[in-house]
């Protein structure tokens, strides 16, 4: 039976939140550095990347949020058999409220009818926590903070799309993604990272898209067709010239990550989850001895 000290785990979760909000992952920083080098000397794009990299460093050193919109807090938790989900949920809530007190998170949960802010970032569906059981003997908490600006430009298409001439195949998928990124311009804090969900129903399609964003920037899709499409999209989307913050430049998108789900014969959804450059995600593994490692 997996056991843990509740008070200690709450503090370990708080550290996970602090890392997510203030410390951009290494693979993302390296991707931004490479993009900066690729932009022309004296271009607005290069100068924007310079400011972005300075901000990333400042946030890390001072332990303050990289972006004031600390987003929807999305947890993906893997648990061994027998570990209770309600207790872990309560501990995540406790750590969340404390993170607001410590200014790692903004109070970001607003009652949709009254407009009242809950004040502690906890509300209906906030934070969002998804549990899955697995065979390993340790718990893994993955956390992503996804802000409202990029969530607002995220979108869903259903194929066929007559206006775009997009049919029910990978070529049709390609066309709607190009359209989505062109419509987004700099509004989602470009350069963005795309999580794409192909298939599923309305909601699982979006969930597939978002789950892709837990992948590393440098990984390769195990499905060779999708791997090819990811590379093609990355190259072609950067031809759009939107550039960082929409100021123009060679970098519109930093990465494309695609996943699929079986669909009904009648439905063909393509969901595009746009993530801003402030691509905040970290994970924590808790072993049976109560020790944690962060990534």
């Amino acid at each position, binding site marked *: 039976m997996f056991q843990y000290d509740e008070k200690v785990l709450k503090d370990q979760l708080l550290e996970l939140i602090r890392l997510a909000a203030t410390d951009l992952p290494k693979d993302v920083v390296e991707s931004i550095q490479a993009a900066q080098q690729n932009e022309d000397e004296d271009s607005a794009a290069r100068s924007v990347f310079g400011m972005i990299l300075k901000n990333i460093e400042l946030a890390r050193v001072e332990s303050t949020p990289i972006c*004031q919109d600390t987003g929807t807090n999305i947890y993906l938790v893997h648990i061994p058999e027998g570990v209770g989900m309600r207790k872990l949920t309560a501990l995540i809530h406790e750590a969340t409220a404390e993170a607001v007190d410590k200014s790692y998170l903004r109070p970001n949960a607003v009652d949709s009818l009254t407009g009242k802010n809950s004040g502690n970032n906890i509300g209906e569906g906030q934070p969002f926590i998804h549990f899955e059981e697995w065979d390993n003997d340790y718990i893994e908490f993955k956390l992503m903070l996804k802000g409202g600006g990029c969530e607002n430009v995220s979108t869903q298409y259903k194929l066929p799309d007559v206006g775009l001439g997009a049919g029910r195949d990978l070529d049709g998928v390609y066309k709607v993604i190009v359209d989505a990124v062109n419509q987004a311009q700099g509004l989602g804090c470009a350069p963005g990272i795309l999580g794409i969900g192909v298939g599923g129903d309305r909601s699982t399609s979006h969930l597939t898209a978002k789950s892709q964003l837990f992948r590393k920037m440098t990984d390769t899709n195990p499905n060779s067709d999708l791997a090819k499409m990811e590379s093609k999209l990355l190259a072609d989307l950067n031809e759009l010239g939107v550039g960082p913050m929409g100021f123009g430049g060679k970098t519109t998108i930093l990465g494309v990550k695609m996943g699929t789900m079986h669909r009904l014969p009648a439905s063909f959804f393509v969901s595009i989850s746009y993530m801003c450059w402030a691509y905040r995600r970290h994970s924590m593994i808790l072993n049976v001895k109560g020790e944690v490692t962060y990534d």
Partner: protein
Amino acid sequence: MINLQLPISEAAIRELKMGDEVLISGLMVTARDAAHKYIHENWPDWLKPVMEDSMIYHCGPVVKQHEDGSWSFVAAGPTTSIREEPYEAAVMEYYKVRAVIGKGGMGAKTLEGLAKSGGVYLHAIGGLAASLAKSVVKVHDVYMLDELGVPEAFWHIEVKDFPAVVTMDSHGGSLHKAIKAKSDEVAKKLISE
């Protein structure tokens, strides 16, 4: 680099052109979604001295309250401006606001308003929250904190050397329009291939 000291005159704002890089110093106020809705429904007089010849910052900050009750900004980058498109031109004209600072740019209605009432759109870098919070040297006051909550309240702040770029000016220039026109062409080509 152009230094802008607030309050600022209409004439000085009309000299700015798309692409100018500026550093802003002085008193301005934050206002975002709920604040704009509130203004549009109430047009309060108390905002007049706060906004006249000053700037609105589209920002929902992370703030910290100190033991003596005073506040400081911890994280304060811009939020997406286009959501205020229905309101902004009217708000700027009514309160004689000389600029809005945000991200992503705004639409045709605001662009027309900038020409009419004398204003510019200033683009700050999205996600630059830690750096831009350093430019907020003092929180003078906060209005409607209880009603609107931390991100949506009117924060009356003093900034020093706050960096931004003019992306929409009072002469009809819009960088956002120009970039979109170019990317539309590329997208059309990619989609038709």
